[in-house]
Every structure is written in structure tokens, then in C-alpha cells.
């Protein structure tokens, strides 16, 4: 089996030759190649080169064309602050809470901000890897984008004070993500992962997720599916157990679960959905290969009978992680019985 076949079989909870392993590496690929994070998040060509280099070193089952969580908001007009060796952050949100928001237009992914660079990277990666290795794009989730456009605190207050305005904003965000996600598929992605940290119960109550986010995620995943996405991958880190029961309704095919969700919780609530997780991200910085191996084995053994599992970290593997720790996780799928 190649990587794509292995992951496709895992989504269907079918037999695989070995458990797929996906290291959620974004800017760590830059660190590994000796490139600054600033260059990595500006150049699609650099990003692709670094991801191919990381694939060569770690030999896992996917590569990512993902820069940071500010690509979409910057394309709409937010101002970012860039660092040489950290991810950029929003310096000024494009929307003010009390403004009219009448001029909101969906940006053209071929032209706006760094979106074209993401597309360029996807084109290179797909050309190089074909259908051997999963080529993953990335869009943020609707709630996360709303937070990036308006500021997270303002967005949360909006949900209470003016829920209809929030609904409008989330609808706009969804349109942006559908457009960007579909462009990623056309450019070469097998799928765009939906990365939605602000939808975590660490931030919003599960009832908000159900009322505000779920309908938009459903719409987003349907649109990506009709745009040719290989499957729907939802990534919500943190204590997500209370919202896992909604994933099936959202159309999720791969559900990321973080270290704060137990294997039992994920397995019991999503018995027929492929899971990926859940080694603690910071363990790749602070831990040792022996610790990572041990955690990997526990996960692999737990999910051995059930299948439908991708060994991974619970969230992004931090840029400053120790390469030997990542190698230990990748190695575990090849050595654990």
C-alpha cells in the first residue's frame, strides 16, 4: 500500500498493511531545512521544498501546505506582524465590532495575500508526489476565521450581544473558506484539512459549537467534497470530547483528537470515524524518543483491533521539536506489533 491507499483504507476502517502515521509538521519543516520561518510562510516554493525534505527525513504518510492561521484574515485585510523565527500574528484586525461590515468581499485565492503561495506549494507537492503521499492543504474553521477577523474576545461577546451579526460573519467566513479550499483542491491538494482551534470547548461552549459552528462546518465539508476532496479532516485541539458527537453530522471522515481527550472517549464517541492523535505536542520538544515510543505503542495497541486510526500528535508538532522525537513516532508504526 502507498500512503494514500493506507489512509483511504483507514477512513473506511478497512485493513491496512501498517497504521498510517502523520507528523503534523508545518514550520518545523523550515527549522529542519535551516530556513527562517518568515521565509517559509512567505514562499510557496520554499514551503514545498521544506516539506519534501521533511518527508525524506521522516518518511510519514502526508505533507502539508499550511503556513499559519492568519493567511485568510490577511487576504481579507488584517495587518500582520511577522517575526524571523515565529509564526506571524494579527497586529490589526480588519473588522471593528461596531462597524457596518458592508464591504466584505470574498478574496480571490489566486491573488489575495499569501493565498497564491499556498496554492503554488500544493501544485509543486502534488506534481512531485502524485498519488503516493497525501498532500494536505489547510483552511481555518469558520469560528477561527471570525476570531481572526474581529478578535476572539469581540467575536465571543458578539455571540451573546448580537448573535445575528455573528451569524452573518460566520456565513461570510464560510464562503471565504469554501472558495480557498476549492482553490486548494484545484491546485493539487488531496484535501484541505479544516483547522479550527477557536471552536474548541476550551474557547466556546459546546452549545455554541452546535448552534453556530456545526451548520457551517457541514456546509464547508459538503462544498469541499463536491470540489473533489478525498475526505473531510477536522482538527479541533484541546478538550474536544463534548463536541465529538456532532462530528458525524458535520460530515467528518478524519477526526483529530488532542491529548486531553482520552482514547476511550474518542473511540466510544466516534466508533466508525477514523481518528488521528493524540500525543501531546509539547512532548516532541520536552520529551525523549523513549517516551514518544511508549506513548505511540499505547495508542497503536489500543486501536489495533478497531483500525481506523492514524498515529499523530494531538496538535501541531512545534517548530522547535527534537527531530529524534518525531522519528521515534514514525518508527513506532513500523516496529509495534
Amino acid at each position: 500500500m502507498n500512503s494514500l491507499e493506507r489512509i483511504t483504507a483507514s477512513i473506511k476502517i478497512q485493513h491496512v498493511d501498517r497504521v498510517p502515521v502523520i507528523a503534523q509538521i508545518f514550520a518545523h519543516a523550515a527549522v529542519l531545512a535551516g530556513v527562517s520561518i518568515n521565509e517559509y510562510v512567505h514562499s510557496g516554493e520554499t514551503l514545498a521544498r521544506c516539506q519534501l525534505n521533511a518527508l525524506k527525513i521522516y518518511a510519514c504518510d502526508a505533507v502539508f501546505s499550511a503556513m499559519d492561521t492568519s493567511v485568510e484574515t490577511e487576504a481579507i485585510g488584517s495587518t500582520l506582524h511577522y517575526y524571523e523565527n515565529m509564526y506571524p500574528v494579527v497586529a490589526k484586525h480588519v473588522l471593528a465590532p461596531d462597524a457596518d461590515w458592508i464591504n466584505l468581499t470574498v478574496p480571490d485565492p489566486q491573488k489575495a495575500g499569501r493565498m497564491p503561495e499556498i496554492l503554488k506549494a500544493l501544485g509543486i507537492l502534488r506534481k512531485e508526489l502524485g498519488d503516493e503521499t497525501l498532500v494536505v492543504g489547510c483552511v481555518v474553521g469558520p469560528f477561527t476565521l471570525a476570531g481572526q477577523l474581529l478578535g476572539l474576545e469581540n467575536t465571543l461577546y458578539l455571540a451573546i450581544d448580537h448573535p445575528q451579526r455573528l451569524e452573518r460573519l460566520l456565513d461570510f467566513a464560510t464562503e471565504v473558506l469554501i472558495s480557498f479550499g476549492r482553490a486548494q483542491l484545484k491546485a493539487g491538494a488531496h484535501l484541505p484539512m479544516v483547522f479550527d482551534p477557536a471552536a474548541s470547548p476550551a474557547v466556546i461552549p459546546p452549545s455554541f459549537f452546535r448552534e453556530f459552528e456545526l451548520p457551517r462546518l457541514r456546509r464547508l465539508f459538503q462544498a469541499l467534497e463536491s470540489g473533489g476532496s478525498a475526505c473531510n479532516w477536522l482538527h479541533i485541539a484541546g478538550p474536544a470530547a463534548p463536541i465529538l458527537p456532532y462530528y458525524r453530522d458535520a460530515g467528518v471522515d478524519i477526526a483529530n483528537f488532542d491529548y486531553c481527550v482520552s482514547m476511550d472517549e474518542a473511540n466510544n464517541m466516534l466508533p466508525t470515524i477514523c481518528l488521528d492523535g493524540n500525543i501531546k505536542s509539547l512532548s516532541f520538544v520536552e520529551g525523549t524518543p523513549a517516551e514518544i515510543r511508549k506513548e505511540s505503542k499505547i495508542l497503536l495497541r489500543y486501536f489495533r483491533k478497531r483500525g481506523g486510526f492514524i498515529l499523530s500528535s494531538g496538535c501541531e508538532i512545534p517548530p522547535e521539536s527534537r527531530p529524534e522525537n518525531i522519528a521515534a513516532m514514525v518508527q513506532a508504526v513500523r516496529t509495534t506489533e
Partner: protein
Amino acid sequence: MADPKMASLVSAILDGDCDRSLANTKKLIESGVSSENIVVHGLEAAMSTLDAKCTLEQFNLLEIMLAGRAVTAVMKLLYPCGEPTGISKGTIVIATLEGDVHDLGKNILKMVLTGKGYRVVDCGKDCPLSKLIEAIGHEKPIAVGISGLITPVIGQVKQVKGLLAGNKLNNVKVIAGGAALKQSSPEKLNVDFVAESAFDCLHYLEKITEGTE
């Protein structure tokens, strides 16, 4: 149990209703209740109720934010010229360090601590270490609270105790919290305490002020 006069204020704060909180505060002022009493028996009582409700499993951030917003509005009404004098349980300096603009956790902590009668000096987000140490030197707090959502700030967190020692501020406790930092341990971060939540931080501070930590 809360003072009966304060019951409607406490209820309004817990409902996160700013307008009702302000209206109730005005009524209390008009009936001669002192600002200090309103803080101690109104705001602190509301925060204590919220504290009891918010366990690690049942932590509703939005509920705390809304109550915190009401507390902030009441504090502004009580002390229009700025911070209150004479009733603080102690000063806490808080910040999110350079490169990290995720300040939601820090802001929640500020609301909780303010509501519980602490004086909070907020160094803001994306705060360089030099600015933080300068503020600590100036304010002489009982503790500094650092919130971090991203792992690259860990290097900065590890330096804080050394910098405090270099400035003869060894008695200031260092508390870390936030999604990235709480994955670690006090030993690895070189801090005194890693808080799971804003209330966890509050409990640690209460131990310090009670002299049990």
C-alpha cells in the same frame, strides 16, 4: 452566603448582564453602601460562586468572560478615576510574552483576579521580557502571571526567575498558564506554579496571601 442586599447584584453578574449589574450597583450606592462593600460582598461573592461552579471538567470560558465584563463595568462605575485604594489583597503583574498575541486567557485571569479583590497590572500581549521585569520592579507584586498559547515562548518563560533574581526580586512568585504552558511542569518551565485555569491560579494566590504557600 452573599449579603442579601447584594443578592441581585451577584445574580446579575453571574448572568453576565452588564446593564442589570450597573443598575443594581447604582441602587446600592444610592442606599449608602460603600464601594468597598460592593466589591467584597458583591463582586467577590459572584466570583466565588463562579469559582465553585467551574471545575476542570465544567469550565465555561464564556460564562466567566461575561461575568468578568460585568465586574469590569461595575469597577469602572465605582472607581471612575482608576484603581481602588486600600482594599486590594495584593498586586499581580500579568502578561503574554513576546511573539504571543493570544491574550484571551490573560484577560480572563485579569477579570477573575480583579473580581476577587486583587490589583492587576496588565503588561499586555506580545510583551518583551525587559518590559515585564521593569513592571515587576516598579510594582513589587506578590506574583507574576504569564499566559502562553504557543510553545515558542517557553524559552522566555524559563528566563523569568533568573531575571527576577538578577534584579533582587526573588520573592515574586512566577505562575504560568495557558494551552501551551500547562502541558509542561513547574520544573521544566522554571516557575513556581503551573495553573490549569484562571481559578487554579487564584487558589494558588490565595495560598500565598494566606501564607500557606
